[in-house]
């Protein structure tokens, strides 16, 4: 832990003013001369053959400039890895879920584009739809993807340690099955894109994308154009939560329509289209068995997961991999067996959602841990402390934990929530629940995985940073500017962050797995250090001291231990720029080259650095007559290493908790018997709003990660991971009712209370 001037401080967000004043421009606000408006025609069937599409009437409508279908594309399927590529840019030959895009139009205005959609006639031959994992896995089931031999799109089996023996040696064993529902992602800014193609064929893509690198690769491959013919520019982005990684139908359609018309094309889809037909979280069935010693020490886990994930694979293999891997953290567990299946159905595509499938893994695990603790009479805090992973631990599958503040996190949330006192005097229908979780600070996927940044020092002593990360609202630009200011001895406001543009910087592989602070941060820090080195050489010459003796602080370059001897940062800079004709640009790259690619087939390997730890305690009140749950307080703690900006970290903790609270209590995508989602608008699909945010207490346990910039780890994605378990455990503590199938609805609680009264 260092003594920092800017890092670790509650610096206001760089983008606060444009955002809160409504001046920030998002993709849907952008306008280019001659711009056309695009719309997508969607499938009304969950499963059907496309016999014929007649676009002639639409094309003849005045104002329509182009109509495209799946046939206009080069016929290449998209996926997160080559071997998992199963999704065409627009439906081709068949539709596999309600809402799959089958055609797109570009017109002079939105009304004309909408009208044109009605004039496209699509002849479908409806096929029986497969809507549940159970149906999909049945022998002889209808195939969702007829090119495959079955509907199990991916499966995996892990084995760490000797599970059979460990269960035999356990003092107590219990198994349970947990079920979690499909949820939609729900960001406030809808999917939107403005694509323009110039006369040379170069595409400029300004979209609401979380990981523009992933989208760029998809576009290049799916449209068969070289990468240098695509320029990705990020406007402001209004949240993503893993729903905006890959190139969606609208992204492909906007580019193709622009290619066809030679005019810019903007497409903004509606929230109802998004809720009902874009990325969702898998519905899962998780069977889990835990073996413990009588003092609560965890000995073995056996787990089987079936993940129902819709018509295309998305990042399915990664989704099921992560559940198995995160049985290893955040508790010591030497023997683990795991098997999982990711299943195709005729429903919208599932993929990553904030916290990944780890959220679901922790729900089952933390629930069962509480049940086991209750059965063997061990305190629920003690059982977590006893098993908490510690500094230097290596997990059963080989993950290396360098630093863990988990024990302190658990102790502090228990104290803050008043656990001990609550046991002495229990208020009826009030309860406290705990849960913990972990996430890596970024990982590798296939393809390029390094981070790049450059810092340009301007002649007035201010700096502009370019990095390959993406500001989605999580605050990356602010904390990167803080890191630059810290290294160069500048103030936070001296550093601006330039536009994220693939023509100027190599884009990061993507904003996933809490990567930005750690990976992008290390590259940014290296870039600032490179600039500092260049300036230090000039200053050392002027001050006649060795470079190593120089310190950069408070806009000064001073000699360590001799503060009298110093130069203003600006005069050093001008010495370089005006005296020596030497512009100062620092460049930095970073990658964890000593970690392993995730092995989807074995689950073995240390696939990340900077494992983060989270412990949460929530207090709920349940109305025994209405079954309503009110979360009164959430005590949120994390070990995010050295927080770069505690204020933004507080925001991440709270946002992550509320996000996951939605899955715990409110959200569920409900489908009718034909595979149409029935609650597809915010009128019926309810996410938590500000009224659902409880009182918060924020705790940051500071550790010093050996690899992270300034000792930092990631935190934002991890922040929501324990909430399902914590809320379910608190509801149980309040009522004695154990809910094993989400969401926790009032009806389920009342039913549980009835069963209880019946003496069952």
């Amino acid at each position, binding site marked *: 832990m260092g003594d920092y001037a800017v890092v670790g401080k509650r610096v206001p967000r760089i983008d606060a003013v444009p955002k809160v004043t409504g001046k920030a421009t998002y993709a849907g606000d952008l306008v280019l001369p001659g711009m056309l408006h695009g719309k997508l025609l969607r499938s009304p069937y969950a499963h059907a053959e496309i016999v014929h599409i007649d676009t002639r009437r639409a094309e003849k409508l005045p104002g329509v400039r182009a109509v495209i279908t799946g046939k206009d594309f080069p016929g290449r399927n998209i996926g997160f890895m080559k071997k998992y590529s199963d999704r065409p840019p627009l439906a081709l030959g068949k539709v596999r879920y309600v809402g799959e895009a089958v055609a797109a139009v570009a017109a002079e205005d939105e009304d004309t584009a909408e009208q044109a*959609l009605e004039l496209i006639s699509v002849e479908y031959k409806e096929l029986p739809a497969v809507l549940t994992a159970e149906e999909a896995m049945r022998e002889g089931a209808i195939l969702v993807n007829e090119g495959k031999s079955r509907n199990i799109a991916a499966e995996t089996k892990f084995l760490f340690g000797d599970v059979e023996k460990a269960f035999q040696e356990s003092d107590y064993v219990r198994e349970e099955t947990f079920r979690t529902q499909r949820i939609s992602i729900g960001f406030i800014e809808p999917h939107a894109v403005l694509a323009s193609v110039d006369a040379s064929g170069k595409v400029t893509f300004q979209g609401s994308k979380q990981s523009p690198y992933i989208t760029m690769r998809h576009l290049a491959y799916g449209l068969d154009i070289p990468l240098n013919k695509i320029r990705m520019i990020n406007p402001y982005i209004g949240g993503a939560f893993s729903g905006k990684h890959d190139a969606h139908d609208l992204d492909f359609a906007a580019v193709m329509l622009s290619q066809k018309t030679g005019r810019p094309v903007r497409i903004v889809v509606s929230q*109802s289209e998004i809720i009902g037909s874009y990325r969702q979280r898998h519905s899962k069935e998780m069977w889990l068995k835990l073996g413990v010693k009588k003092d609560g020490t965890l000995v073995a886990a056996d787990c089987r997961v079936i993940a129902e994930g819709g018509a295309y694979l998305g990042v399915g293999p990664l989704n099921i991999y992560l559940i198995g891997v995160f049985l290893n953290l955040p508790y010591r567990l030497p023997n683990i067996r795991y098997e999982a299946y990711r299943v195709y159905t005729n429903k919208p595509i599932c993929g990553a959602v904030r916290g990944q499938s780890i959220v679901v893994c922790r729900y089952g695990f933390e629930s069962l841990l509480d049940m086991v603790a209750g059965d063997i009479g061990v305190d629920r805090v003690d059982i977590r402390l006893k098993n908490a992973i510690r500094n230097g631990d290596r997990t059963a599958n080989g993950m290396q934990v360098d630093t863990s503040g988990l024990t302190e996190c658990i102790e502090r949330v228990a104290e803050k929530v008043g656990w001990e006192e609550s046991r002495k005097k229990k208020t009826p229908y009030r309860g406290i629940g705990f849960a913990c979780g972990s996430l890596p600070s970024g990982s590798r996927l296939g393809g390029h995985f390094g981070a790049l940044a450059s810092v340009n020092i301007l002649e007035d002593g201010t700096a502009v940073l370019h990095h390959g990360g993406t500001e989605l609202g999580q605050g990356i630009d602010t904390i990167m500017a803080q890191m630059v200011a810290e290294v160069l001895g500048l103030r936070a406001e001296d550093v601006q962050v330039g536009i994220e543009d693939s023509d100027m910087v190599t884009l990061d592989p993507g904003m996933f797995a809490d990567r930005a602070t750690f990976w992008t941060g290390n590259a940014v820090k290296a870039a600032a250090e490179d600039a500092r080195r260049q300036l230090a050489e000039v200053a050392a010459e002027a001050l006649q001291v060795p470079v190593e003796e120089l310190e950069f602080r408070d806009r000064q370059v001073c000699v360590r231990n001799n503060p009298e001897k110093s130069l203003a940062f600006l005069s050093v800079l001008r010495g370089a720029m005006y005296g020596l004709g030497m512009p100062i640009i620092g460049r930095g790259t970073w990658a964890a080259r000593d970690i392993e690619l995730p092995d989807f087939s074995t689950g073995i390997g240390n696939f990340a650095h900077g494992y983060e730890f989270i412990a949460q305690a929530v207090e709920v009140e349940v109305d025994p007559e209405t079954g*309503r749950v009110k979360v009164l307080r959430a005590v949120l703690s994390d070990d995010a290493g050295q927080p770069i900006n505690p204020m933004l970290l507080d925001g991440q903790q709270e946002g992550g908790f509320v996000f996951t609270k939605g899955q715990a209590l*409110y959200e569920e995508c409900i489908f009718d018997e034909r595979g149409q989602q029935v609650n597809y608008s915010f009128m019926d699909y309810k996410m938590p709003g500000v009224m*659902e945010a409880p009182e918060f207490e924020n705790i940051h346990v500071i550790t010093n990660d050996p690899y992270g910039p300034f000792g930092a780890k990631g935190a934002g994605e991890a922040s929501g991971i324990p909430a399902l378990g914590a809320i379910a455990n608190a509801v149980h503590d309040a009522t004695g009712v154990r809910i094993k199938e989400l969401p926790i609805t009032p009806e389920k609680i*009342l039913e549980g209370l009835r069963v209880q009264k019946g003496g069952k």
Partner: protein
Amino acid sequence: MSVILNLRRLPEFTYLAPKTLSEASNLLQKYQGKAKLLAGGTDLLVRMKERWVVPEYVISLNKIGDLDYIRHDEKEGLRLGALATHQTVANSSLIKEKYRLLAEACGKIAHPQVRNRGTVGGNLCNACPSADTAPPLLALEAQLKLVSSNGEKLVPLSEFMSGPFTTILKEGEILTEIQVPDLPPRAAGKYLWLSKITEIDETLVGAAVLMTVSSDGICQQVRIGLGSVDQTPIRAAKAEALLQGHKVSPKLINEAARQAAGETKPRSRPEYRREMTEVLVRRSLTQVVKELD
């Protein structure tokens, strides 16, 4: 066409903004079946985007003026202009003091942006089974003033809604005023609700209670309005009869609440809605009795 696309841009229509009521009524008559009245627009515009309704003419009432008043005197009782917004009603010190159940219902509706546009008249004419203004206005025995080129008439709210999203309004008729009689002394009311899922959400069950209790604890008058438990908001008449003229006790309140639940015919989540009707009626009666004690 897929249902998913059905929240679209507004369809084309002709916008008319008459300056007088008679002009508005004439336009309605003239464009029979092709026109819709616009008050706050919080329901109509959504319905148009959904293509539930595609009117050729939208006739705004907003240029007529003086349709958003809140007036009260002891003789006439409360007079609410149909265009009074939910927020004005919720904020009105007069209504908060004398007709608190109505202020509570209006303050519950959606969020401030919608409350600032949405009107009490519009809420009733939209005739959604879960319309929050209806249960308290039923309990208050509101009368609605309907104006047409043939003149005016008064209709009790209890006869106004004929089914989900349908009313007895005839072509050319405009709801202009909601009339609520003055309350006797020792009357108190309460509106309690549960939303469907989250706090800012459609009402799952709404229960409005208005009761007069004599100093010796006899229920002199009671009215119970329920929302979202049948095709239209309803009165729980049998539950009222159980209480009327009897000494109020927790046991009697329980019986009445159970009776009220038995008078409901909810379509979705029926068991839960029925159970919650009982809970809410019991709670609102109990609170009112406590207040009058």
